């Protein structure tokens, strides 16, 4: 099996995730696109682990999974709070911080 198989698949997932972050207006959808990006990175790490024969890549992939869980928890709590205060989670309505 070629190494580029995994790496190109991860590149496609990453690009799709970046498109989603740019294109989506709903905050929950943006968080889902970020999940795509994080998974692409972990896939790369596991592929590199297989390539080098060391398990460090898998350790990093587990760290990425843990960080993603924390990120989703805090992110969705923030989305809930914004929804409760503003009755919307459309990201372009939240422009108070714009200069």
């Amino acid at each position, binding site marked *: 099996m070629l190494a580029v198989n995994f790496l190109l698949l991860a590149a496609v997932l990453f690009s799709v995730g970046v498109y989603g972050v740019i294109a989506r207006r709903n905050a929950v959808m943006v968080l889902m696109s970020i999940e795509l990006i994080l998974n692409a990175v972990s896939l790369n790490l596991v592929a590199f682990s297989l390539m080098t024969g060391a398990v460090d890549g898998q350790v990093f*992939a587990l760290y990425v999974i843990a960080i993603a869980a924390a990120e989703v*928890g805090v992110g969705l709590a923030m989305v809930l709070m914004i929804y409760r205060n503003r009755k919307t989670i459309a990201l372009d309505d939240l422009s108070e911080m714009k200069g």
Partner: protein
Amino acid sequence: MSAVILAADGVNVAQNVGFGIIAAAMIFAALKVVTTDNVVHAALWLVVVLSGVAAQYILAAAEFVAISQVLVYIGAVMVLFLFGIMLTRAQIGKETDLNNKGWALGIPVGLALLGLLAWAILDAFGDDVLPDAGPTPTVALSDQFLSIYLVPFLAISFVLLAAAIGAIVLARKD
């Protein structure tokens, strides 16, 4: 052309076929996640992508990471997403304003990023063949976690604790 080289090298054909099928399903599902009109359907397509990633981990001989992926992502994170969707939306169904006004800008950005990444990957790892590895013993992973990665391990447990407390503080009503 590369298929001929693969067959000549005696590379595991079944592994490649499995990889291709799962990869095609994952790419289709990922495109549906970012293009569908229905937030709940996007979450369910995301389940397909995450399961595909777990299957690829098994193909890459990383069983423990695959099991963690299923437990954490499909088990916990997706439930959290569905709760987030249900708690922030009045109606379930198609929506017309899920995309930004400038959403089309994402297409050239994504394609340019994909082109750059693909060029760099093919340039650096063009014909590296992955070794046929057996399953990674979980003992090897835990040895790493409890020796040289001990401090990051403790740090990430603190991060998870802080995130849990922070989420409760942010989301409670009073």
